[in-house]
């Protein structure tokens, strides 16, 4: 990760300097006057020539302005006092691509509160992510060179304190993005389970169940999906016991929060095979599980005062001589039978068993599942919002409010008996698909059949959000780790004891 430091606000002697400038006449911002004087007015002249007004989202680069600096970059942050945590992150994120040719840079954040200065740092760190493990021939001059970023703050000690938990979040996000970016020949279920084991270093207790254990327990739905692949399935259960100092919570302890992720490491569709075009995207069909792993890393990394379990069902969905067929009937862990009409509606089968197991084992306070579940949710909401389905208005409202704060937005979608009726099967308790209309809703209805009455539950269909085809302020093109920051904020805002 980018090395982030904090220092007292003063003009740096070399490298790049980033100014955060408020909109208005005249322009205002930390170190603006100092750098302008040090460059004999060159900076303000350049900004005037570029008609830079400080509007949010605008920037202006001045090369070799003097005073020993290689460049000065002005970033517009909009009207005075309009900066929020999120827009500060965006400002920080937008700086990073402008600094690709610099090795070290400083951001003049002396005009911001310590929290906002830390948020700028977080945005920059999030944007600096790069997955270049397999680019073996990339020339050094083509790689971004920025290694050290210093936030010049009014109170550097306080800003650094504010940065500590945010750094853990960034690390959790990166852990998740790495998992989602890895190709499926590398990241098999077993490999992903191994990578989860690495969280033990942070104090997370990790249990892994293999096919033998799951068969014995009766994970018929999950095992049905897995049986076509040579890569064996896993279920990983991650415990973060932040309230009992990492030890196993006592019997009297309040039940944990539970997060559950769909982890289909590659989804060919199985016998109901997908069209070839775009199938490579299906390496990220484990992004729900990836988000849960990233969340666990975050909570452990910042020593969150909360007890949480994270469960991920990891399978590969392949067509083969041993694969599940359309028409098969499987018996899920809950005892309910499922007629598999489409082997490409496999995510819900995996979730069905993991969700049931989670309730039986942990009787959690609530369950939130994340899954790249349906194409229908993309046709419904595009890449703006994840679909949120829930049986609990209060929990949904909490998520919606933190969603706005983190920029990981959700939109509530309906559940109703009329949709559930479409799942009726002639031969089993239910089918795994209904008609193609309302497909994201009927998928959620399917999952709800495995949620016990009265158990608060949220399902996030993140199919449109897990991968970005373009750079955004704090997320480079590629794996987004959608859900990590959202759920981390949910926990910190509503479920942590202080």
């Amino acid at each position, binding site marked *: 990760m980018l090395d982030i430091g904090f220092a007292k606000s003063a003009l740096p002697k070399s490298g790049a300097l980033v100014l955060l400038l408020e909109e208005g006449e005249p322009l205002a911002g930390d170190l603006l006057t100092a750098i302008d004087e040090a460059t004999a007015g060159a900076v303000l002249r350049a900004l005037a020539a570029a008609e830079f007004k400080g509007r949010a989202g605008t920037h202006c680069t001045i090369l070799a302005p003097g005073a020993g600096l290689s460049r000065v970059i002005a970033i517009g942050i909009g009207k005075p006092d309009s900066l929020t945590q999120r827009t500060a992150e965006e400002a920080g994120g937008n700086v990073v691509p402008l600094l690709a040719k610099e090795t070290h840079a400083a951001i003049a954040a002396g005009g911001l509160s310590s929290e906002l200065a830390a948020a700028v740092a977080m945005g920059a760190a999030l944007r600096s992510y790069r997955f270049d493990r397999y680019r073996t021939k990339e020339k050094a001059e083509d790689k971004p060179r920025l290694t050290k970023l210093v936030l010049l703050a009014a109170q550097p000690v306080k800003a650094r304190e504010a940065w500590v938990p945010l750094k853990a979040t960034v690390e959790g996000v990166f852990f998740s993005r790495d998992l989602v970016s890895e190709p499926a020949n590398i990241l098999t279920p077993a490999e992903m389970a191994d990578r989860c084991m690495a969280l033990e270093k942070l104090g997370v207790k990790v249990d892994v169940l293999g096919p033998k254990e799951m068969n014995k327990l009766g994970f018929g739905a999950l095992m049905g999906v897995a049986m076509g692949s040579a890569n064996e399935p896993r279920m990983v259960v991650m415990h973060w016991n932040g309230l009992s100092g990492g030890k196993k919570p006592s019997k009297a302890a309040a039940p944990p929060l539970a997060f559950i992720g769909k982890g289909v490491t590659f989804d060919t569709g199985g016998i109901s095979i997908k069209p070839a075009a775009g199938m490579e995207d299906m390496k990220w069909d484990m992004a729900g599980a990836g988000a849960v792993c990233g969340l666990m890393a975050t909570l452990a990394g910042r020593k969150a005062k909360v007890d949480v379990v994270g469960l991920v069902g990891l399978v590969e969905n392949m067509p083969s001589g041993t694969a599940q067929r359309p028409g098969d009937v499987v018996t899920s862990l809950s005892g309910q039978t499922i007629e598999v009409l489409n082997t490409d509606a496999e995510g819900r089968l995996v979730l069905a068993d993991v969700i049931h197991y989670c309730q039986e084992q942990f009787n959690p306070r609530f369950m939130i599942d994340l899954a790249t579940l349906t*194409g*229908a949710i*993309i*046709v*419904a*909401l*595009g*890449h*703006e*919002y994840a679909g949120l389905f829930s049986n609990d208005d209060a929990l949904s409202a909490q998520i919606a409010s933190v969603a706005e704060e983190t920029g990981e*937005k959700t*939109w*509530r*979608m*309906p559940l*109703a008996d*009329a*949709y559930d009726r*479409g799942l009726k099967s002639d031969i089993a308790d239910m089918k795994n698909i209904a*008609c*193609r*209309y*309302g*497909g*994201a*809703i*009927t998928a959620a209805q399917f999952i709800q059949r495995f949620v016990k009455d009265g158990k608060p539950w949220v399902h996030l269909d993140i199919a449109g959000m897990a991968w970005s085809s373009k750079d955004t302020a704090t997320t480079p093109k590629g794996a987004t780790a959608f859900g990590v920051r959202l759920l981390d904020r949910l926990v910190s805002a509503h479920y942590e004891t202080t």
Partner: protein
Amino acid sequence: MKLRIGSSAPSALAVALPVPLGGALPHEAVPAAKAAHFNGEVGTCCEARTGGRLLLLLGIGPSPHNATYRAAGAMAVARLSHVKRIALDATGLFAPQAAAFALGAVQRGWTPPQNRRNTDPDAPKLTHIDLISEIPGIEAAWGDAEAVWHGSELARDLVALPSDVVTPDGFIERLEPLRKAGVSITVLKRRDLEREGLGALLAVGQGSAHRPRLVLLQWEGAMEAKPVVFVGKGVTFDTGGICIKPADKMWEMRADMAGAAACAGAMLSLALRRSPAPVCAVLALAENAVGAESYRPGDVLTSFSGKTIEVIDTDAEGRLVLADALAWAVRRLRPAAVIDLATLTGSIVVALGHEMAGLFGNDPALAAHVAAAGEVVGELVWRMPMAAGYREALASDIADLMNCARGKGQPDACQAAAFLGEFVGETPWVHLDIAGVESHETADDAQAAGATGFGVRLLDRLVAARFEDPHRA
């Protein structure tokens, strides 16, 4: 269908009787109820023979509300449509409950106009319903319900009739009941549309021999207030135009004027029950045909608002006719609120299926009122988002905006709503994407097959609940 209210129904061949959970039964029906394990649970029913008459027991559960009675009425007709004359026994019901019972029945009894002279021996025979009620106020309660019924029938007939009959002018000819009820009707024809500059509506209609029209329906009401304005998409047939649709199921596109039909139906309902609220409807009628004069993908249109639109797909035509109708309504009528209805996108059907319409808008309060009205009448809507990203996807290289985003799998319902939002400005506005709920595929206890008239009852209820109070804010 005829409905008569009276204290008895001697000539009815069958009687439908609502029964609460565990409620007492007429003693001659007890054996049949026992055999069928009928105990009044909501949504269940049981037939019993009593003397020469058929008795249908309708379970209404422990705490019935108006919607329960509406559903019971529908079930009565669904189960008894093979009988010519039935009675609904509303003895003991309050007037609103009895009216809901009757409305549910007559609405379920709708048949497509093509079927009304059906010689098929299995065709429904039911033509007369007797509502047995002596409760004071029943005439007034039924009067309001009857107005909605007639409005709904008008809308459903318009949707069901084929597109060779319901051309833009054919649609207008069928608005005669509105004129009779006191609604003024103004039709803008080609010259008027050209003079006014409704370039988007004209473009959509230019490929058809049946020319586009803009219809203004006005109900003055009895209050000094800005009008509520309904705007309806009335594409009398949608081939898709040059971006022609696949042949499979193209016939369903005769229902692509269901939004305009619902607006017309709601106007009739309001006029028949003499609503005090001033209400207008603007109907954008056009046929989207393939012809030598058809507009093309890539064309740039200048809309009534002055905004230019690059046509990416000629099958995204509903939003074009609405763009002009909405902008025209806002400028010419200065509305208090605008509600548009349109069978606009396939995307909303993928999103919400056939159970709910998508609701978009720029005014949370109006959106909440619309959703509440839908809830009351059983025409459900679900709030969908308006985010800047949907508008950004419509950025054009050559014009002010594109009519849809390029590429497959787009969140087209949200983008279409963002498109429409460009033409309403600050006026409180709700857009209902009713694709998927305008027709009901197969008949069941709740609904007849075919046109649903979705929106008529919602709009009527919205006006009653929100716009008829002279002291409203």
